[in-house]
């Protein structure tokens, strides 16, 4: 077999540019896909992967640049148009119709018919044949929703390819599949590749990239970082391309603090949930900061959600003060005096229309029950105390929180949980989207909190930052806790090499 780069160019993107108000989502990005190639498209959140795909499939209009398919300039009007041009896309959440039969999903709009009537028998026979080519032997008359996500995804791929796709885009297809299903999917991808189809594979899982891709392209902040054959690209280099930092010659030393000792405040033993996160052990002592580091999709947020009871573990046991506890809902967690500030504070955290005061007392009020209203004077007292303590910049506590800057919103969210006097606090990306000054303040705040005896679990994509305040760092990869770093091991470089190392 000839090397893929000698295959004809299938898709050529030159200088693709797209901006949204205030954001340059794509900045002169080049991308080349050859026939019979599996091309990994990688990048962290906001790198521009989805924008690239959406421009390619006609969801967004491009601002500039050219897209050529087999040498012809193309501009898809919408996804259906892109499909007719030969660009098929399969999304993580399968975009098919769950209520229709598998056969109808495969053939909708082009059902075999005679005298205006659909030949259902013929359609089912052809659907079975088509899926047999993918090693799938299922009853195609059943509704799609009666099958697993993995099968639905194969049906989606079969449909896209059968509609004469030359380019197949897979947007995080493996995010909700188990290991065996991923293997099946990869078998199918390799077979499609040998038929000369060009495949764009978006994923966060490095092992999968190395298992199946021929070449990778990395984007960061809307710019092209590089495009390389996978065989010539060591893992550590790939990770540094994604995270945008070189290995520093000398490791940054964190603030030296004596190791925290004593009995763990909270502990999780063999805690996990299938398809979400592999079982893990985790223990935090009072006054200890544990960081969770890893690439996007590695299982950081999933860990946090499990620990706070948002997702229910299907195995393992949680302990507080050495005693086993029930932790099935966020209410349980709140009762145990856990706190959680989510990653997406706009949708999951703040109530934008309510005032700062109302937002701050929200968790405390919920804890007391709505029948025992916190007296207004007490509310004012709490609000003004935290506004002062955390230095929330606002003229008064009655301003709607939506009008504050990101950093101040984040502080108010912190205040909400601090008002409940938690013993264990989980912060998911506490410094995302806030300016540098507020950044430093939040970090100082984290350090001050643990001096007060709070146990903190912090998730962050900023390796330097996480290394600077964590006593220990748990590194995650492919939804597994792969290594726990402590003492002098805690440095941005060790974290990065651990992320990049083979499992």
């Amino acid at each position, binding site marked *: 077999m000839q090397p893929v780069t000698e295959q004809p160019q299938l898709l050529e993107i030159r200088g693709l540019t797209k901006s949204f108000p205030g954001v340059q989502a794509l900045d002169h990005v080049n991308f080349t896909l050859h026939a019979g190639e599996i091309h990994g498209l990688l990048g962290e959140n906001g790198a521009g992967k989805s924008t690239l795909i959406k421009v390619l499939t006609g969801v967004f209009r491009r601002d500039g640049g050219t897209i050529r398919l087999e040498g012809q300039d193309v501009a898809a009007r919408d996804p*259906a148009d892109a499909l007719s041009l030969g660009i098929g896309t399969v999304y993580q959440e399968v975009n098919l119709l769950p209520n229709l039969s598998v056969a109808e999903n495969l053939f909708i*709009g082009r059902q075999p018919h005679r005298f205006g009537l659909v030949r259902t028998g013929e359609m089912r026979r052809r659907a079975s044949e088509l899926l047999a080519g993918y090693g799938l032997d299922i009853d195609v008359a059943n509704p799609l*929703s*009666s099958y697993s996500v993995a099968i639905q995804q194969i049906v989606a791929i079969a449909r896209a390819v059968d509609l004469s796709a030359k380019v197949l885009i897979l947007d995080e297809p493996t995010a909700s599949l188990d290991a065996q299903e991923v293997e099946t999917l990869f078998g199918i991808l390799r077979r499609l590749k040998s038929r000369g189809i060009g495949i764009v594979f978006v994923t966060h899982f490095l092992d999968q990239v190395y298992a199946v891709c021929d070449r990778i392209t990395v984007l960061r902040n809307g710019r092209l970082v590089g495009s390389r054959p996978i065989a010539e690209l060591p893992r550590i280099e790939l990770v540094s391309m994604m995270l945008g930092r070189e290995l520093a010659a000398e490791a940054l030393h964190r603030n030296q603090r004596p190791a925290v000792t004593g009995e763990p405040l909270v502990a999780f033993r063999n805690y996990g949930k299938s398809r979400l996160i592999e079982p893990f052990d985790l223990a935090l002592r009072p006054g200890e900061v544990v960081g969770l580091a890893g690439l996007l999709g590695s299982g950081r947020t999933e860990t946090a959600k499990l620990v706070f009871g948002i997702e229910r573990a299907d195995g393992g046991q949680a302990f507080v003060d050495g005693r086993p506890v029930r932790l099935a809902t966020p209410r349980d967690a709140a009762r145990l005096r856990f706190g959680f500030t989510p990653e997406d504070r706009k949708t999951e955290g703040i109530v934008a229309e309510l005032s700062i005061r109302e937002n701050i007392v929200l968790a405390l009020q919920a804890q007391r029950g709505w029948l025992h209203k916190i007296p207004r004077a007490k509310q004012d007292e709490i609000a003004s105390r935290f506004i002062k303590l955390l230095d929330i910049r606002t003229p008064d506590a009655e301003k709607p929180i939506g009008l504050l800057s990101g950093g101040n919103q984040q502080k108010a969210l912190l205040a909400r949980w601090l008002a409940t006097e938690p013993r264990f606090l989980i912060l998911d990306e506490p410094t995302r989207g806030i300016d540098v000054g507020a950044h430093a303040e939040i970090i100082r705040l984290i350090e001050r909190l643990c001096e007060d005896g709070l146990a903190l679990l912090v998730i962050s994509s900023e390796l330097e930052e996480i290394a600077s305040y964590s006593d220990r760092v748990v590194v995650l990869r492919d939804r597994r806790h792969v290594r726990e770093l402590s003492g002098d091991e805690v440095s941005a470089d060790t974290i990065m090499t651990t992320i990049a190392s083979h499992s």
Partner: protein
Amino acid sequence: MIRRHLPVLITLAVFIVGYLICLAQFPSFASTRVIGNLLTDNAFLGIVAVGMTFVILSGGIDLSVGSVIAFTGVFLAVAIERYGLNPYLAFLLVLGLAAMFGAGMGLLIHAFQIPAFIVTLAGMFLARGLCFVLTTDSIPINAPAYGQITDIAFALPGGGRLTFIAIVMLVTFAAGIVLAHFTRFGANVYALGGNRTSAELMGVPVGKTTIRIYMLSSLLAALAGIVFSFYTSAGYSLAATGVELDTIAAVVIGGTLLTGGYGTIIGTLIGVLIQGLIQTYITFEGTLSSWWTKIAIGALLFAFIVLQRGLSAASVRSRST
């Protein structure tokens, strides 16, 4: 296989149990006379329910059908009695008008992305208002054609009659079944109800299908209006108030999910018959107020909606394990 047809099987079981209860109390329920009347009395409801099934399957709702039925009756009465129009020509005219009316609503719903609830609510007021513009009186229709048509009936063994309007209803259901389950249009209707966005991504002609669905619903409402005018031999502006709600109830009791995407036409037929059965039972019983029909329908509706929630929750659970 069983699971897929569970809602309609439950509807069928309810009908059979109901029928057996009626039979146990009033043996004459077995006579073809009662069965013939059951079909005749519910013919107009059945016809309009076929259209409503398509609308609800696509994830929409059509509140205008009751008004369209009344408008049809008034239009026919005025056209035939006041202006001496040929009844058959009047039928064609009113069917054409209704089709345009429905297509217009479908166009508004699609083009401006307005909820069907609002558009058809406006349609409901509009059609009802037009009735009063034509006339505020109840006008009897005495055209000879009406007598001829209502006289058409097949004698059933045992003294019952399968009337023309009952046949129209059964034919409408047969056509509805073919349209829903054996044509591309039918598949597109289900696709819209399953997930509009996905359907659009998969190349389903969303606009065309939406317009046709509401056109079909109004067309069948007008047909039901014609049948209703045979039944009552009159046109009256206040006729068929609340029929849209009876129709929706029949469709839901027939196993169609109000959120769209799941359901069958045959289920709707059974749903209509269940309503008819309750009505007939109360007539036989004699002492109960006819409002008990509404109470029974209300209770059934609750039961079915809870059942549907339970079933869809169960199917989600069975898939995730």
